[in-house]
């Protein structure tokens, strides 16, 4: 980790990278709801004004327009504060982006607690949970400017909805030289054997610092930079937790439904007391009578009985005990 002077915030890296890539890719368009100077989409506006669309203070409309633009083959980026893009435009994001799987990129600047001393109205704490709960949306929260630049490129290459979360202020750089970001792949930022930190965004540098402090006390901590919050890199997290048996999740957001929620869901299902989760498996429903629907989506009595059997089998495999 190095806190060099040239480190910039992830919003700054986002804005500069997008503007630079847009000069070479005419399919990229940017939509702004009067926050371009804060989201740093202002770089795009100045670089390619003909593809910058100002919608005024109207986030719901912005997401709808983006869906229409994506429908014509363009790659729209919608910029706003993380609070507004997730909460204000939630229904539009769910139905016009998630359900349609249109190639819309949603950018939430000012993620989390550390959002420029604007207070609770501007602190996005549930945006990750909201975006995670919506099927078909890739959720990214890069840790530093280097990783953000690569994430913007990856989001453009990826065909489908992406939520890209930024922080307002610069935090220490954590990306090692030669690092390559890939959607769906976490990165081990520090190796250890006693405890695992699973973290994202600016909390990665915090966790690295914590790991350094722990090492002075003789505790070996592993730090996993989970820049892709969805889809979660289950393999890397599980292999680390199998080794350490102790997990701390750390995110600049609520512990409910975000990265912490995702890891708890993973561990509950795969590693600790076996948890089989019945319900819609991150997908949308459809038409049909109730009996057909509950059957097709694995929520009828038959599936509940199966789920109970599966949970008990997992428990027995793990404990080696033979029940019944």
């Amino acid at each position: 980790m190095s806190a060099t002077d040239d480190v910039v915030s992830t919003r700054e890296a986002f804005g500069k990278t997008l503007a630079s890539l847009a000069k070479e890719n005419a399919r990229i368009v940017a939509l702004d709801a009067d926050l371009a100077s804060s989201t740093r989409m202002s770089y795009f506006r100045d670089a390619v004004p003909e593809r910058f669309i100002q919608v005024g203070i109207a986030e719901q409309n912005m997401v709808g327009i983006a869906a229409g633009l994506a429908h014509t083959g363009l790659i729209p980026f919608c910029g706003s504060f993380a609070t507004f893009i997730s909460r204000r435009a939630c229904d539009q994001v769910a139905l016009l982006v998630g359900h349609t799987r249109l190639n819309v990129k949603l950018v939430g600047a000012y993620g989390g607690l550390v959002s420029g001393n604007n207070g609770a109205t501007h602190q996005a704490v549930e945006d990750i949970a909201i975006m995670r709960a919506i099927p078909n949306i890739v959720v990214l929260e890069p840790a530093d400017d280097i990783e953000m630049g690569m994430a913007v490129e990856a989001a453009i290459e990826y065909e489908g909805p992406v939520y890209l979360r930024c922080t307002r202020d610069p935090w220490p750089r954590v990306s090692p030289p030669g690092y390559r970001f890939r959607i769906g792949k976490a990165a081990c930022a520090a190796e250890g054997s006693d405890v695992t930190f699973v973290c994202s965004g600016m909390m990665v540098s915090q966790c690295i610092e914590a790991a350094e402090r722990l090492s002075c006390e003789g505790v070996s901590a592993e730090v996993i930079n989970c820049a892709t919050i969805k889809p979660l890199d289950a393999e890397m997290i599980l292999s680390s937790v199998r080794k350490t048996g102790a997990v701390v999740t750390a995110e600049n957001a609520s512990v409910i439904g975000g990265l912490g929620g995702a890891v708890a869901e993973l561990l509950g299902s795969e590693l600790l007391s076996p948890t089989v989760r019945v319900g819609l498996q991150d997908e949308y429903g459809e038409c049909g009578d109730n009996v057909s629907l509950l059957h097709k989506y694995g929520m009828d009595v038959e599936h509940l009985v199966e789920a109970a059997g599966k949970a008990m089998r997992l428990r027995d495999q793990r404990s080696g005990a033979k029940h019944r």
Partner: protein
Amino acid sequence: MLDRTDAEAISRRVRRRILSTIHSAGAGHAGGSLSSVEILVALYFDVLRLDAANPKWPQRDRFILSKGHASSALYSVLVERGLMESDLLRSFGRIDSELQVHPDMHRLEWVEISTGSLGQGLSVGVGTALGARLTGSDFATYVLLGDGECQEGQVWEAAMAAAHYRLDSLVAIVDSNQAQLTGRTSDVMDICPLRDKWAAFGWDVVEADGNDVIAIRQALLVARGSRGRPSVVIAHTTKGKGVSFMEVGGHTWHGRVPTAHELDLALAELSDAGRSKGGEPRECN
């Protein structure tokens, strides 16, 4: 171009399909589907630029059914226009069906975009119209809204943006049937005067009898000819149009499924030998 006799015969067949489909599925929205019939017939037979062999022809005009609950009318018109097999109507609302009660673009290729949450379609239309401009295409975008739907704030966000960007390739159509789920639109939340509202937002406004194919077609063509401004067609219609007891029932037929007896009565009224006892549409202004 359809002549009046053909247009009326097609509209009657569409209405029979709508009601049979909804009855069979035990789901759907009769009132607002019946009010939209002539608008959809005019669009799909005479106004929309489309290639029957290629639903995704890049130069096609885009049609967005923002009032997604009128899906049974859209599906029935697609059948009459020869774009969809009539057998498919039997699967409406059933498990694994292409025909969702609210249209799904990934299940039926003639559905341009999935809709069902009211107030969202016009924003998408602003996006496709801007997209046409940015990609150098000359297709038009038509968006059909309900009048109750105009209570959604997002509609007016989109209206503002369309005028700001002078999107003259965008045509909104308001199916002004004067009723919504829980009552008359003027009682639930009065949106009148609609003409003045759209005009104040910078739109060209055309009004027409929305249950007359020839009149609504003419209005749509006038609207498409607007230059420098988006245009809206306020289509004065009757909820439940074509079935006497549904016209009288108004909002109570928003989401009610006709019984077997009611279906028989309705089909008799809609038979080619029967007569449509439709009343005059109520004016908004």
